[in-house]
């Protein structure tokens, strides 16, 4: 795929098993951590000082994209570069679904992880990026197991729930975590000859479905994103099986971003220790405003982007 003639939907590096191992390796290193959305180097510094394990560069946080509308695109190159110069932790950045030229730009910038994200306006309504050909690893969103495995089959080295970005409402991330883990558990109960039919239902490649049936988990790290606004939200995602969390609008749309950022980091590490959670929940400023899901019609739901 990545070597095709013509437009060359591919990256700048070689697609090898070794490079995929390195990509998943970096995802492993982010486990137990918090990846924070930032729009400038000052926010990136606050995120790093608060204990973020990576920052996600984007032009507007999801709640602003939701409010202001318009086409949301990859972050400006100068902002990404200034964030790279400012922090020591990995720098991620988002591209529009299917926009492999934005991916090539980020890859050439040496971005540590590319998020092919439903939060930005999709560039291709049918095809996601062929992610194997790039040197930078990719993370993609998923609502269910089939979607997660389709992204992995395209080369994603990390999966996150889509949740509902910019909503400040955890309900969709919980739904997606429960769906993915529930579908993995039910796969494990199948007899070997029943797996092929299930793969068809999931619209996912048989070899990946068989692997999940055997191991009970995704072949890449499995994180949560979309609507996490408080330390308790982060802990909830961890307890439902997410190995790390992404926080978007929640931090920099709150009354005291540094305090909330530190508290979410603490809750993510100590999600199963109530005394630590109490301490993390104490003294927080005003959280971001949340959105009730019923007030969003289908066209306003970012999670519906991608397939």
């Amino acid at each position, binding site marked *: 795929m990545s070597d095709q003639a013509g437009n060359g939907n591919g990256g700048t*590096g070689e697609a090898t098993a*070794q490079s995929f*191992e*390195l*990509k998943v*390796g*970096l995802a*492993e*290193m*982010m*486990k*137990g*951590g918090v990846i924070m959305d930032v729009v400038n180097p000052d926010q990136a510094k606050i995120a*790093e000082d*608060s*204990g*973020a*394990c*990576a920052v996600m560069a984007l032009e507007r946080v999801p709640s602003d994209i939701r409010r202001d509308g318009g086409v949301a695109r990859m972050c400006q190159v100068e902002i990404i570069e200034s964030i*790279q110069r400012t922090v*020591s*932790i*990995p*720098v991620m950045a988002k591209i529009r679904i299917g926009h492999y030229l934005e991916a090539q730009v980020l*890859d050439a910038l*040496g*971005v*540590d*992880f590319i998020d092919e994200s439903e939060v930005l306006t999709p560039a291709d309504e049918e095809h996601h990026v062929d992610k194997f050909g790039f*040197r*930078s*690893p990719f993370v993609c969103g998923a609502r269910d197991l089939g979607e997660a495995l389709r992204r992995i089959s395209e080369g994603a080295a990390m999966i996150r729930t889509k949740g509902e970005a910019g909503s400040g409402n955890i309900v969709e991330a919980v739904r997606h975590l429960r769906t993915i*883990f529930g579908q993995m558990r039910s796969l494990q109960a199948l007899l070997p000859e029943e797996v092929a039919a299930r793969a068809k239902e999931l619209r996912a490649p048989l070899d990946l479905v068989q692997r999940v049936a055997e191991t009970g988990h995704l072949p890449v790290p499995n994180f949560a994103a979309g609507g996490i606004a408080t330390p308790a939200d982060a802990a909830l995602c*961890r*307890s*439902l*099986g997410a*190995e790390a969390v992404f926080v978007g609008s929640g931090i920099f749309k709150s009354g005291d971003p540094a305090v909330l950022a530190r508290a979410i*980091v*603490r809750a*993510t*590490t*100590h999600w*199963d*220790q109530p005394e630590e959670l109490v301490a993390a929940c104490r003294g927080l400023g005003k959280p971001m405003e949340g959105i009730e899901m019923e007030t969003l019609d289908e066209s306003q739901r970012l999670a519906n982007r991608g397939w």
Partner: protein
Amino acid sequence: MVAAGRQSRPAAELCVGIVSVQGAVQPHAAAIAKAGAAWAQVRHPEDLDDLDALILPGGESTTISKGLERVGLYEALEAFAQSGRPVLGTCAGAILMAREVEGFPVRSLGLIDITAVRNAYGTQVDSFATVAQGELEGLRAIFIRAPQLKRPGPDVEVLARVDGWPVFVRQQNALATTFHPELTPDGRVHAALLELARKQQP
């Protein structure tokens, strides 16, 4: 659901603590289990009681450092190392064990007389895998946004190198790798940690 606390432990078995503030804990846990020892998460100073050895895993050294500071683990880890029990640090863990840290400084434990240079190879697109040169033949080493180790002191034994740089070092009971032995099935680095732990047992 994914909680992995202390496992049931037969009396004679070694138990290795893995600092679980942030980072790749599970691959180390799997390597330790494969080598026949028990393991336990370490997130507070009291978690260090009754452990025979300790692992500081890979992850983000800035993040792990802030987490150690918050729960008061730096002093506890120093006391643990001073007791003579072995400690293995990998990648971010190696940075935390160094005497000095260059690039983006973080507070380190100074268990090994060496300087760690953070993000010395570049970003993730510069990550690589290769075979390290040293006593352990054919040691496949995975480097992910790895640090480089420089200026080893006279008491530091360099056990493996890549391109001339030390990538696996030892000073008494402290072991450090800039690569990720937990991400390959090799097992010899974890075996070396357990061997040191057995020597410490009464």
